[in-house]
Every structure is written in structure tokens, then in C-alpha cells.
């Protein structure tokens, strides 16, 4: 396809513009795009994942029937960084880690849509993870213990039992 502007170079950028409800297709080359101010930083299209997220979040809002609920959403905000729910739903980005708590009740539907899930099941950091890592290890050891008992490996089972006790004491002291 040839550029609509210069009619010389091949068109490498394709846009759809909607002006006053009229849809217009634009096929232009890099040079003409730059001249006409259509270039985006880094050659990236301005449309990003954040626009999509914002759409999802606002869709949730528009499903809300009562005016009251939207008012409630408007006043919802994060005490730590000051991010309001409308700001979050517009930008599709949190302001700080406490926003997750502040907007908690609105997040499950979003996470379900984006990830199909609402709970983390991966890596747990050693320190910030607190006792989670230890608890996970205890769960794993308990599972192994059951297997050992089923297979009558009592010596190994005893070792596992001692290790579980040790870890549970550690958790209790944290």
C-alpha cells in the first residue's frame, strides 16, 4: 500500500480516525506521519493496556445501577497515597501497594477477568512474606508425612514430624 500523503513511499502506519462521528482510514509512511505529527514516542501506538483496563473498570461502574453506588465509588480512596477510585479506574494503575487494600472489594472481578484468578500461588519472598513461606513448607512436609505413613516408612516419618514441630515453633515465635 502506498502512502496517501506523498504517494511515493509505502504506507507503514495505519490509523483509524473518528472525527465528529465520521470514520476515516489513514495509511501513511513514517516520513509523512512525522511531518503531520502522528508519530508516537518509540514508534509505539498510544493505545495501551491501561486503556483496556480502564475500559474494564468503567464497565463495572456502569453496571452499577444506583447513583448512590457511583457516589460511593467516587469517595473511595487510598489513605496512603491519595489515589481515588475514579483516578485508578481512569489510569488503570495503582498509586502504591496500599491501594490494593483500599480498593480491595472492587478488585476480585477485575483480577478474574484479567487473570482468571484472584489468589497468588507463586514465589513468596523470605522476609516480606512473613510466615507464609514457613507455613507452605509445613503444608508440604505434612503431605510428605502422610505419604510416608501410608507407605510405612516410619523412620522417615519421625524425621518429618520433628521438622514440622520445629517449624511450627518458629512460626509461633514470629
Amino acid at each position: 500500500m502506498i502512502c496517501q500523503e506523498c504517494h511515493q513511499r509505502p504506507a507503514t502506519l495505519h490509523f483509524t480516525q473518528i472525527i465528529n462521528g465520521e470514520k476515516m482510514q489513514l495509511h501513511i509512511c513514517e516520513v509523512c506521519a512525522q511531518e503531520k505529527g502522528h508519530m508516537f514516542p518509540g514508534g509505539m501506538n498510544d493505545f495501551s493496556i491501561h486503556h483496556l483496563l480502564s475500559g474494564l473498570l468503567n464497565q463495572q461502574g456502569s453496571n452499577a445501577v444506583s447513583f448512590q453506588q457511583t457516589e460511593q465509588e467516587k469517595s473511595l480512596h487510598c489513605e496512603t497515597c491519595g489515589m481515588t477510585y475514579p483516578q485508578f479506574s481512569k489510569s488503570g494503575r495503582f498509586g502504591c501497594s496500599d491501594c490494593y487494600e483500599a480498593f480491595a472489594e472492587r478488585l476480585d472481578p477485575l483480577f478474574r477477568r484479567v487473570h482468571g484468578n484472584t489468589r497468588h500461588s507463586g514465589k513468596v519472598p523470605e522476609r516480606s512474606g512473613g510466615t507464609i513461606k514457613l507455613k507452605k513448607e509445613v503444608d508440604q512436609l505434612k503431605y510428605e508425612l502422610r505419604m510416608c505413613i501410608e507407605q510405612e516408612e516410619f523412620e522417615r516419618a519421625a524425621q518429618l514430624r520433628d521438622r514440622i514441630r520445629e517449624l511450627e515453633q518458629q512460626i509461633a515465635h514470629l
Partner: protein
Amino acid sequence: MSFQNFITNAVSEWMNGEGEDADIAISSRVRLARNIQEYPFPILATDSQLEQITAAVRQVMEDEDCKRQGPFEFIRMDQLTGLQKRVLMEKHLISPNLMAESRGGAVLLSENEAFSIMVNEEDHLRIQCLFSGLQLQKAWEAADRMDDIFEKHVNFAFDERRGYLTSCPTNVGTGIRASVMMHLPGLVLTHQINRILSAIAQVGLVVRGLYGEGSDASGNLFQISNQITLGQSEEEIIENLTSVAHQIIEQERAARRYLMQNRRLLLEDQLCRSYGVLTNARIIESDEAAEKLSDVRLGIDLGIIRNIPLSVMNELTVMVQPGFLQQHVGQQLDSDSRDERRARLIRERLQSAME
């Protein structure tokens, strides 16, 4: 080593053409998004908070374990010109986002360019690990190790239920984005690519352009990455992606066999013509260059074009980008001059590879 080396040398270790299935899976990347508990995310952080984050990262560089992974070079974005930033982006060492909006931005690069740790991008930290070929497991292990080193020094924002807390809800949980860059001309030529790409979408994976979200897939290069970060463990994500990558590689190999058996003459003609263009053209635009480089790469893989190492093709893919081209010449070039320089650079590089 000065940061200049990262900018003047085209070749990164990830371009060496080694590693499993490196003819089709060009590179493997794992990126972990992390934030420090005490600070707001970069979009809301004040300049002085961003400075404190940067200072914390520089401290981690003093860690003995960190030094063992290195040596590292710390580069602030405000020390770089627009062109220098663009070169780092073209080499996949920084993201287009860090290049464009770099308030308080910085990057920690390992000498071999396998590690690239972005500071104050969308999240406080983006720990990235890049390897040649299909080596996702290795890339994950390396990124995981680096993550542990950081964790000794800073408190990560983490929640039992949500996992690692990130600025964007699409990264929450593991914060992991794993991707494989694949060269799939066989699937494109046999018109199977769309079928395969839509199947990929159904298993929670996504296809992006060469430079990530929002960029084009040119030269038959596709970047396949995980979409889901919450509810799956890192190992599951890596295993899924590796398994899908293996299947795509098999499909690509089958398409190539089909083409060689049924359309050999036509295929040889196309690939050799492309080689002719690259070794003779005096003016070449980036799209055409990407297309012809893809053909020559396929020609090398199929044994139709000989004596050119794959690493040269990887290198050229980076070298013909606008930023690198201008850096190489040492001046700003308009689009027409770039096309001329690009043609010359390709001719020279292919010629020296043949000697």
C-alpha cells in the same frame, strides 16, 4: 567498562545464536516486576523518593552475591541522549517505556548484557534476564537468584493473597513476564500463522511485537509471552510457555519441510533473491530490510545460503534499527539517509561475514 560499550557494540550475548533451538527461538527473556514497600509506585513517587529508590539499588550492587553475577554498570537515564536511550531499547536492554518517560529512571546492566535491571520504570524494579535460544528455565533461575539478592536489602511490596504488588493490575501475583522471540517464516509462508496465534491466545499466552506491547511483528519475528501472572506459579508459567514454544517450533519445522518438499525451487528463488537484494541494494527501508533479513535467515537455516553465522543475522536485526544506525554513523540522519546507510551497513556486514 563504560556505558559507551553497551551503546557502541551491537553484539549482546543473547545474540550469539547458541542455546536450544536457537535457529527458531532467537531469545528467551524473563522479567520480574517488583516494588519496594515503603514508597509509592513511580507514577506517584516524588523526585526525592525516586532518588532514594535509585540509591537503594546502588547499595545492592555492593552485595557480594550481586558482584558474582556481574560486573554491573549503573546508568541513569538522564545521563543519556535520546539516541543512546533508543539504542539500549533496540538491543532490548531497556523498555520503550523507560526510554520515553524516564523521570528518575536508571538501568543496572551486567557486562555480558544478560541482566538488565530497570529502575523506576512502571514499577520500582524490573529485573530482566535475557538469553539466546530457548532457555526460559535458565533465564527464570537467573532472575530468581537476582530477585533473592535484592530481597536481602529491600522490603518488597507483597501480600499473602495477591502476591507481589505491582503498579499495573496485569502484573500482580508473580510479577513475571516470560517471553520467547521466535522467527516463524515457514508458518507465515504456509498461511498457518493466524491459526496458531489464535490457539496461543486460548491458553493464556499472548503474541506481541518485537519490542513488547504495542509494537509491530516485522520480519516474521513474534514474541510470545505469558498473559496471566496471578494464580499460577512461576514454574507453571515457565513450563507452559516452554511447552508451547516447543510445539510452535515443531510446527515451524514441519512447515519448512513441506516448503522444501513441495515448493523448493520457488522458495530457493525467493530466499536467494533476498540475499541478492541485501548484498547489492544501495537504498533499503527498514521494513524491506526486516523482510529480506528474515528470508536470508531462513536460507541459512535450510542450508540454501551458506557461510553466514546466525549470530550475524541477530546482530543485523539490531543494527539496522534507526537508533543504532545513527549511533553507528555518529550523527542524526533523516529517513532517506538512513535508508542509504542501512543498505551500506548490511552489504558490509554480510561481506565481512563471508570472508
